[in-house]
């Protein structure tokens, strides 16, 4: 039985339609800003309650890899230090459902980053 979707984030509407950059110093729509202000709290609550977080990628103007790596990649990478790389990827993917109505490539870019997080720091 699939888990209930209890939390939702639409990146374009709730955060920015123009996400870009890894660190806050690279712009206010950076991956770091998204991770700390939106993603982390909702994802950990979803994991704690054993429910799903739906992340809607529709309407984003592109999907910059520095943003993806600075948010989803960074989170999985740091979590991997605590529970193991493979376990972290599986846990994050278990509780996040990506949705995208305007691109066939975005969802794969995000899931690939979670499966194989590459981060600078």
């Amino acid at each position, binding site marked *: 039985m699939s888990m209930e979707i209890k939390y939702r984030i639409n990146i374009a509407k709730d955060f920015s339609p123009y996400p870009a950059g890894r660190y806050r110093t*690279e712009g206010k729509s950076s991956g770091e800003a998204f991770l700390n202000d939106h993603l982390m709290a909702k994802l950990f609550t979803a994991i704690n309650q054993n429910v799903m977080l739906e992340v809607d990628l529709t309407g984003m*103007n592109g999907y910059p890899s520095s943003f993806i790596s600075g948010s989803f990649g960074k989170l999985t990478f740091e979590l991997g230090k605590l529970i193991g790389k493979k376990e972290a990827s599986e846990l994050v993917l278990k509780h996040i459902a990506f949705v995208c109505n305007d*691109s066939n490539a975005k969802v794969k870019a995000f899931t690939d980053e979670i499966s194989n997080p590459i981060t600078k720091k």
Partner: protein
Amino acid sequence: MKKLGDKILKNIGGVIVAIVFLVLGLIVGAIYQSKTPVLIDEKIRYSELLNWITTMSIGVIIGYYLKNKYENNKIIKNFLLEDLKNISVQLVTVKSYCFELRSVISFSEEQRKEIISQVNVLDKKITIFLNLLKDCDSSKHLEINETLINGLNSLNKKLTSDGLYENPIQQFYFDEIMSESSKFEGEVRKIMLNIIRNM
């Protein structure tokens, strides 16, 4: 008009001879038919009927079904090739835009946004193509979908990586983009060839 009249008058002898022979033929035919009773074969030959129906069916299949199918496939193929051509053009646009910026020391916010937007346009063009392909040939969709998406994501990774924010921009940032986009362009051409040959 006069010329036509002259031509008829010139050939009038030939026309009269032809009419005479036609009338003679008709008379001879009528005489022969009146002397020979017409026999009606009342036996139904099913093999001949079957032969006739088969011929008609083949004619209908070739004339309507196959011809229509061929023409529809040709139209769809043209649409798909046109979409792939648009992808190639957009790929060249992205590459050229980056090539123009080779001399820049660091990108401005506008230039970064433009690069990300160009990739977004490329993504949209690929989505249009893949959606059409999915609707008309689902057997090919899976393989082509994977090739195009992997190619686009690899290029996107190079284009919108941390290299976009380096100051000064490293030379290998541009080198990687050139290499990745050329590789992707090659893949698009292969898909074009595949559609031309096999659809």
